[in-house]
């Protein structure tokens, strides 16, 4: 009788077996990162890992795996890309949710859906176009004759810089971020908006005083997802910014290329080809992956704390 009853539940067991697979995969991924990064921690040590000295791929000094420049590069890339992506996505979200121009506002979501299909390698490929349109005329002194170029500012290699990488990354992020912002703005209760409009305030005032404060916690969590995406991308930053680089001087020089964590890890793991691969380099790459995971976790926790504060202020 018991067995028959159990047998009747066969779909439940099959679904459970399949549904538990992602959890197992996730645990295995994390375990793998921790186990593989042991070698780097043992041989190089934390003092070697958290230093600014990094051996370039083509330099003679090998075995220097300082990732402080990479952490700083991650910060710079996030700063540039989110500095572009957040205002534009917010504008797109406001345009499609609050100011309903008949067909234009409705057309925003499908356009974003189509644009989100463009893969990241295409942005990396077309970064040359933006270098030609924006970086070369503005930042390289293109009009100067070669003799007149001042010594401290050498001509930068025109198609690699943190600024260009951030711009291309923002183009990848916007189709992902704008729908999330749109959803956050649409989640504001209609009764509040309508009460504000009925009391005679305009749409802009309603947006500023009602919709925006109430959607703020949703907007923050959406931005955190955008930041995670910016942190996690490796193709654009690898091909546009570079794989390994020292700390820039001055620190906020986004016209130099400062490789972020992901592309530094990709460089460790043989981003330039299979020949450079070694167990130590692979292990260092795994350590950067682990650090990335920890940073992502810290950001998520911070956002959760922030969200709780805003939820207290604007319940509902």
């Amino acid at each position, binding site marked *: 009788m018991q067995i028959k009853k159990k047998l009747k539940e066969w779909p439940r067991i099959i679904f459970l077996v399949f549904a538990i697979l992602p959890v197992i995969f996730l645990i295995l991924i994390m375990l793998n990162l921790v186990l593989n990064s042991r070698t780097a921690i043992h041989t190089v040590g934390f003092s070697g890992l958290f230093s600014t000295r990094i051996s370039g791929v083509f330099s003679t000094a090998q075995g220097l795996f300082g990732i402080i420049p990479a952490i700083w590069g991650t910060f710079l890339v996030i700063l540039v890309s989110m500095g572009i992506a957040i205002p534009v996505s917010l504008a797109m979200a406001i345009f499609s949710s609050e100011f309903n121009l008949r067909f234009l506002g409705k057309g925003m979501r499908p356009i974003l859906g189509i644009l989100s299909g463009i893969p990241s390698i295409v942005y990396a490929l077309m970064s040359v176009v933006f270098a030609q349109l*924006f970086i070369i005329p503005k930042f390289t002194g*293109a009009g100067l004759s070669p003799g007149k170029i001042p010594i401290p*500012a050498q001509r930068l290699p025109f198609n690699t810089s943190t600024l260009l990488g951030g711009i291309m990354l923002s183009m990848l992020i916007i189709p992902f971020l704008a729908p999330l912002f749109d959803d956050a703005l649409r989640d504001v209760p209609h009764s509040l908006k309508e009460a504000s409009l009925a009391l005679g305030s305009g749409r802009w005032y309603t947006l500023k005083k009602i919709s925006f404060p109430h959607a703020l916690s949703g907007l923050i969590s959406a931005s955190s997802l955008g930041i995670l995406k910016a942190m996690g991308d490796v193709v654009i930053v690898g091909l546009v910014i570079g794989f390994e680089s020292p700390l820039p001087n001055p620190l906020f020089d986004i016209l130099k290329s400062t490789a972020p964590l992901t592309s530094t890890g990709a460089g460790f793991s043989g981003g330039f080809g299979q020949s450079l691969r070694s167990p130590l380099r692979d292990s260092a790459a795994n350590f950067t992956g682990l650090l990335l995971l920890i940073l992502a976790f810290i950001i998520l926790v911070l956002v959760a704390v922030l969200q709780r504060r805003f939820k207290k202020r604007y319940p509902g």
Partner: protein
Amino acid sequence: MKMKTVREISSNSINNVTSTEMPVHSRILEKLILVFALLISGSALLLGVFSLSLNNLESFPVPAFGILAIFLLSLFFYLRYVKGKKDWKLIIFCGLSFGALTLLRILPEYLYGLNINGIIHRSFVSALLLISIGLPSFCFALFYFLGATPKANDLSHYPVIILPILLMLVAYGIIIVRVFQNGAPNINWHMLITPYRWQDFQQETWQNNWPQWVAQSIHQTGIRNYILGTLLLMALTSIISLPIGISVGIYITEYSSGLLANIIKVSCNVLKSISVFILGLTAVSLVTYASGTFLSKIFDGSFVDANGNSHLANGSFFTAAVIISLLIIPIIARATEEGIRSIPSNLKEGSTALGATHQYTLFHILLPWSFPNIITGLILGCAEAAGSLATIWFISGTGEFGVSPLRPVTSLAYFIYLCRGDFSLSFKKIEGIWQFSAALILIVITVGLSITALILKRKLSQRQRGAQ
């Protein structure tokens, strides 16, 4: 009586100010000032946008700022003395544009120093100034042009929202147009059906009963294997991720809502937002662990070269599909969940009331209902799989030894990377011109899939609206 007269006088004075009883020349002057302010600030804004990429507009910003300042000042005095309204913002922006004017006069043409790795052209500064001063001035001009009503206040904020959207859409347009321009002329039938092969080998021939080895080489260029690889990757990924994704969605919604469901949900969310770089590292580790064991044929992949020797590769299509399906499982799970939750309760209750078991309801009502949702999720996931490079970056090969699940993995995205990265010059010279063609084909595949998913979603929402 006195009170009444005072009221009359005051009402008369107010009526004088309103435009209905204004003299004709004053009304024309008002319109003229407002139209010119609108034109000047709009053209300053346009100038700023264009000087973001053009260097030879350097003679325009200084006079533009001058005229803008004069018109802002005249608008302020007009409002002050004719309408009796003080708008100090106009004065502030007038001062700002005078400041910008003097700053641009002082600046040399090229700025450098502070060890910054670049030589900044003056037009970059002027573009930033023009946009940041021209945009608010345009909004003020629009506000007064539309009659300074609350509705005008709403409408005058449109430029602030529309300008960044337009700039971004133009940027996307430039990218897509450039891909078409560079890629479309190079696409031909020959390139599409020829597989890439670049092999040198020793051919054994028999002459006078003695073996002789002659160095032979096959040098073919084409992108057939990359296209087939992309399609195979999509197919394998969907085969792996479909059952897992659907069961995650069903288990979360139908069978459990307790701790286990929460754990599964959270881990799916983490998988969705985890870095693709970490997944790539996992693929490398998977290949490394498998090599040397009985699984090496499956996970490492193998190929037979032209000499007839068998080699182990860096990673097979199967490995890549397993790793990419981790990205796609959350998408399908979410779609399934949405589909099941969107079912009208009367359908489900009707099935239960007629005596159907839970299983029967699941397989005959819920799954058919959410089938279009699942397909939409699957299509979006396929688009993701086609474009994903980071996951297969470290394990890919060129795919010249055939495309099948246990051969080295390759895809169009990796081909574009091969053309970009300076691997070998010969490869780049011959196939480098095709990187844009490959990008075009890739965009057509992924964007086509996204559009299909969008259309399907729209059809779906119509059906659901019809059911309710």
